[in-house]
C-alpha cells in the first residue's frame, strides 16, 4: 500500500513538473532565450555593471539575494546553537 502511494506521489510530481515546463516553453521544447538576450542587450546601461552576474544579483534579482544572505545568517546561528554545549558561551 505504501509503495503504491509513493509511486502515485512521484508520478504526480513529475506530471506537475512537465506541466510547468510546458507552461514556460510553449509547444516547442527548445529553450527560450528571451531573458538571456535582454540581459546581454540592456544589462550595462540599466545597471551600470560590466559583470552580468553582478548585474543580475544586485539589481534584477536584489530581492532574492537579500534573502540568500539571510539563509547564511540562519545557518550560522543554527550551527552555533546546536554545536556549542557551554551555556556561558552563547
Amino acid at each position, binding site marked *: 500500500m505504501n509503495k503504491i502511494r509513493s509511486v502515485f506521489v512521484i508520478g504526480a510530481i513529475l506530471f506537475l513538473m512537465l506541466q510547468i515546463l510546458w507552461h514556460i516553453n510553449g509547444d516547442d521544447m527548445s529553450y527560450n532565450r528571451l531573458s538571456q538576450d535582454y540581459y546581454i542587450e540592456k544589462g550595462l*546601461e*540599466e*545597471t*551600470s*555593471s*560590466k*559583470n552580468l*552576474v*553582478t*548585474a543580475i*544579483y*544586485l*539589481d534584477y534579482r*536584489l*530581492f532574492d*539575494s*537579500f534573502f540568500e*544572505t*539571510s539563509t*547564511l*545568517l540562519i*545557518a*550560522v*546561528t543554527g*550551527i*552555533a546553537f546546536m*554545536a*556549542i*554545549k*557551554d551555556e556561558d*558561551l*552563547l
Partner: protein
Amino acid sequence: MRYSKILITISRLILPFLLMFSIYIIINGDISVGGGFQGGVIMATSYLLYYFIIGEHPFSINKMLKLDKYIFIALPVVIIISLFMRGQYFTNAFSMDFPYEVRRLFLLVLNLIIGFKVAVGFVSLFIVFLEEGNS
C-alpha cells in the same frame, strides 16, 4: 596548540596578500569577475591563516554573531534608499540619468556589505568548529 614552523612562516608570508586580494575582489566585483560572496570567503580564509599563526582565535563567537546580525540589518537599509530617491523598491538608488561612475557606488556599497557579512558568517563558523575541536 602549536603548528610546524614551515606552516607558520608561509602563513605569515601569504596573509597580507590574501587580505589585499579579497578586498580587491570585493571592490572590483562589478567591473570584472568576482563579487561579494567570493571576496568574503577569501577574507574568512585569511582569518584561518591568522589562527595558524598565533594559535588561538581572538574573537568570541558571541560578538561575531551580534556583528553578523547588525550587518544583516544594514542590508535592507541600503536597499530601501531607492524608494526615496526613485520611488521603486529593490533597484539601483541612482536613476539612469546619472553617469556610470556614480551609479556604480550603489553596487560597490552592496558588494562591501555582502562581502563583510559572508566573511563574518564564515569566521563565526570557523570559531564554532575550533571551539568544538579544542574542548
